């Protein structure tokens, strides 16, 4: 199914970034994506950095807060910055995130390429015992 170039082109880098972010946030032990300073600047000064990047590169790329995706020749590379819960081993959480993202990408028909995970922070989970309710709040929090 992943052999159709037409199908692959229908999947935008933005969609992959979105999927990768959701997959990461659904993984146990992930508190949130960590916006980097670069990500915040992109947000604050609308356009300038993004435009530079667009004109610089031929491949399509997208940066949400904490997630950077490049798609070329049907292969998707993902860089993800996360904060993890102290109650989980950060390394195991990061491995789980990598595996899950690779699986999610292959479901889209694209080929998972390099998936790099950076654990920028390890923290106590905010006192929300229900893991289901943690996901939307984690989204809101980095959405400055």
């Amino acid at each position, binding site marked *: 199914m992943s052999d159709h170039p037409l199908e692959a082109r229908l999947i935008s880098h933005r969609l992959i970034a979105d999927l990768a972010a959701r997959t990461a946030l659904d993984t146990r032990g992930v508190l949130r994506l960590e916006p980097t300073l670069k990500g915040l600047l992109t947000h604050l000064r609308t356009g300038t950095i993004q435009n530079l990047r667009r004109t610089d590169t031929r491949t399509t790329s997208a940066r949400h807060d904490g997630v950077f995706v490049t798609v070329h020749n049907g292969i998707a590379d993902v860089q993800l910055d996360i904060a993890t819960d*102290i*109650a*989980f*081993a950060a390394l*195991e959480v990061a491995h789980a995130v990598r595996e899950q993202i690779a699986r999610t990408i292959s479901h889209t028909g694209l080929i998972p390429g390099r998936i790099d995970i950076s654990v920028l922070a390890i923290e*106590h989970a905010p006192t929300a015992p229900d893991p289901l309710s943690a996901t939307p709040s984690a989204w809101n929090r980095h959405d400055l």
Partner: protein
Amino acid sequence: MNEREPVVLKRPDDLDEATLVARAQDGNLDAFEYLVKAYQGRLFRLAFRMLQDRGDAEDVVQDTLVACWRKLPLLIDVHAFSGWLYQMATNRCLDSLRRRSSHAEVVQEPATLQTTADSSTEPGAGGDPAREAEVSFEMDGLATALLTLPPEQRACWLLREIHERSYAEIATTLKVSEQTVRGRLARARAQLAEKMSPWH
């Protein structure tokens, strides 16, 4: 994980200030936020009595705390934190007054100051309305008289008498000798005592 260690969270309230400063130096936002909460009121009161303007005082507080975050890793002695913070705030107040000094110093009317005094309680007045009025009157007189002091004298007096900073620290803050601090303080007291007397 194979080896699940018990993880205990120590809240900032359970830690001493020096430890919180050290953790903020290493980028811990919870520790830094705790310090911001602990100091913002004190810094605002210093700036407000220096500048007699809420907006200007808030600018000084914000500016000081942002600079604090940025320069914190450079602070060598964690116990020097509060003095260092007061120093940054005082210098920003003096800078703000220098920028203003092309205009005439605006001395607020006692009527304007009254609004501040009205909103406050009067500890020590003992519920005697006449005595309360007298105390409030004295405070207004003092706050107004304070604005007639030269900025560096005002800073000296506020740091020592209201914020109870040490002579050595004030000397460092204002880059003068301790003796100069004592001299300025004595002059400030004498002037304030004299300025206040017309109200009695």
